C-alpha cells in the first residue's frame, strides 16, 4: 500500500507553457449574483487560484479590484461594456476578465448543488479570446452561498484560464 501511495503521489502533471516572459497581465474577477445585488469582486481564494494559473506561465498578474475607479465593471452585466470600462486602466496591456454567475440548483443527495456560469475573456491579441462554460459545484452546508460556490469552482476555472493562456502564449501572444 505504501508503494502504491508513493507511486500515485509522485505522478507529476504536465508543465504549463512558460512563455510569458515576465509580462504583466491585468486580471479582473467578478461575481454576478443572480439577484439584483450589484456585481462584486470574486472571493480571495478564487482570486488566488486564477493568479496562480497566470503566474505559472511566467506572466506577472496584476489584480484589478472592480470597485472604485473601475465602477463601470459593476455598472454593467455584459462583457462588452465591461471591457470598454476597463480599457483606460488596461492602457493597451493584455487583460483577463473572469465573470462568474453562480445560480443555486437544488439540494442533491446531501449536498447543495450550484451551477457557476463562467465567461473568460482574454484581451491580448488582435481578437479577444472568449470561453464560456458552466461548473457544477457542491457545497456541504445550508448557509454557504454565492461566494462559496465561486470558491468551489476555482480549481476548474483556474485550469480553463490556463488553457486559454496556453493557447494565447503558444500562438505567439
Amino acid at each position, binding site marked *: *500500500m505504501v508503494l*502504491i*501511495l508513493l507511486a*500515485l*503521489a509522485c505522478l507529476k502533471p504536465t508543465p504549463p507553457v512558460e512563455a510569458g516572459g515576465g509580462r504583466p497581465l491585468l486580471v479582473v474577477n467578478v461575481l*454576478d*449574483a*443572480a*439577484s*439584483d*445585488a*450589484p*456585481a462584486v469582486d470574486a472571493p480571495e481564494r478564487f482570486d488566488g487560484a486564477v493568479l496562480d494559473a497566470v503566474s505559472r506561465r511566467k506572466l506577472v498578474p496584476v489584480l484589478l479590484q472592480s470597485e472604485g475607479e473601475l465602477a463601470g465593471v459593476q455598472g454593467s*452585466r455584459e462583457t462588452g461594456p465591461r471591457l470598454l470600462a476597463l480599457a483606460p486602466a488596461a492602457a493597451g496591456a493584455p487583460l483577463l476578465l473572469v465573470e462568474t*454567475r453562480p*445560480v443555486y*440548483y*437544488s*439540494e*442533491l*443527495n*446531501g*449536498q447543495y*448543488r450550484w*451551477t457557476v456560469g463562467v465567461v473568460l475573456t482574454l484581451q491580448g491579441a488582435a481578437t479577444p479570446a472568449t470561453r464560456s462554460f*458552466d461548473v*457544477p459545484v*457542491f457545497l*456541504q*452546508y*445550508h*448557509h454557504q*452561498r454565492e461566494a462559496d460556490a465561486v470558491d468551489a469552482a476555482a*480549481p476548474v476555472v483556474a485550469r480553463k484560464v490556463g488553457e486559454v493562456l496556453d493557447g494565447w502564449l503558444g500562438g505567439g501572444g
Partner: protein
Amino acid sequence: MILLVSLALAADVGGYVRVMTRPDLEGGDGRLGYWNLYGRLLNEGPYAALELRQDILDQKPGTLQPWTDVHAKIEGGTVANADAGGGSLAWMKLSQVYVQAGNIGLRDVTWRLGTLEQNYGDLGLYDMKPTLLLADTLGAQGRYRSDRLEITAGLGDAGWSMKPDQYNTIFTGALSARVNLADHFEVGVGAQGYLEPMVLGNQNAPHTTPGLTYEDWVRGQVVESWVQDHPGQLSEFPNPEPTGAESGKAVAYLGGGGFGPWRWSTVYASYAQLHPRGFVEETYEGETVALYVGGLTDERTQLFVGTETQLALVPDRWDLVLAGLYGDNRDADNDITPSDDDRTFMSAVVRTQVYVSPVVHLLVESSLAEEVSHNGNTYRNHKDSIFASTDGAADGDGLEVGDSDTRVTWQGKGGIVLNPLGPGIYTRPSLRLLYGVQYSTQNNAFGNSFVETLDQYNDFGNVERHWHNVVALETEAWF
C-alpha cells in the same frame, strides 16, 4: 431515458452516483454492518440519482425579471452488477417534479409547486437528514431568502406518500425559519403538522376497530380470539368507528464555526409524533377482516439528536470529522414485544483524512454504537440463540427473540482515496480502496444468506461469527 431527453432539451443535468464491489468471503452481502448508525461508509449500497433542471425563463443577474424553471429527479438504490436489483428502472422512482418561479409578487421569494422539501442539512458521516420537512408532500411552497434570514412555508397533501395503498387526503403544512448571525453562527427551527380528517363511508379514512389488544394484533389472532369469545358470530365482528388522525414533527438546528481550524459544527434535533396507521387484514377460516389499528399506533414518538464537527487540523494536509447521534423511539401502546418503534440507539463516528498529495489521500474511520430494545430481547448473540426468547430462555409463546436486548457494534475502516478535485473529506468524486472490520455482540450482524435453523436436517450447519471483514473498491460522485 431522462438523460437523453434532458440532453435533447439542453437542460442542466445534475446527479449523484455511488457504486461499489465488496467481495465478501464470510458469507455477507457486501455491507459491513446493518445500517448507517455505524457510519455510512461501507454500510450503504449502490445508489444513483439524476436530476434535470430546465430553465424556462432564466435568472438575469442584476435584474428583478421573473424567472422560472422545471426540476425532475429520478433515483434509486440499484446499479447493474452491484446488487440484486441489477440497475432495473423498476427500482427507480421519479422522486421529485416541481416548478419554481421567482421575482413574482414578492421580492426575494421563490415559489415552488409540485413535490416539496425543506431541510437544514445532512449529517454527512451518517447520511441522515434529521430536519427534513415536507419531503412527503405535494403542494405549494414559498421561500423568502435574504443574506441573513430564510423563511419557508408550505402546504399540501401527504396522503399518497404516507398511505400509498390506502390513500386518503392528509392535509399538511410546515413553517420554518433560519437566521444567520455574522457568518459564524446560525439557528433554525421548524415544524410540520398533519391532519387526516374523518370521512364517513371511506374505508381508507381513519377508523378504529373497538376492542383490539396489542398482543392479539402482533400475534395475528384478533379474529381468532374474538370468535373464541363469540362462537359462531364472526359476522358480528365489531365494525370500525370513524375518527380523525393527527401527527407532527418539530425540528431545530444550530450551526457555528469558521474560526481557524474549526470549519463548522452542526447540531440537529427533531421530535416526531408518528401518524397512526390505517388498516391491516387478518384472515381466519377463509374470512378476511380489516382491522383498523389507528388506536394501537397513535402513541409512537421519535426523538433524534445528531451532531457533526469538521476540523482542518493542518490545512490541505489533515482533516478530521467527529459525529454523534442519539435516538429514542417510544411506542406507548406496545409494552410487550421488541420493535423499531420502541428502542434507544446512540453512536459516535470519527473520520480522519490525510492528504499525501492533493489527489492521494489516506482515510481512517471508526465508530461505536449501542442499540437497546425497550421491550426485551431482540438480538441473537449466539448461533443457538434461536431457542432463546423471553429472558434468554426458550418460550414457545414468547414475543421476544434471542438472548439480549442490547447490540453493541464497533467498526474500523481505512484505505486509499483518490480525489481528482483535491483535498476535502467531502470532496467528490472519490475513488476508494477500503478495508473494513466490524465486531458486534450479535451473531452474524450483517446481511447474509446463512441458514439459521437448528433443525437436525439443516444441511449447511450454523456459524458463530462476531467479527466481519470487507474489502471494498468503490466510487462516489456528485455531478
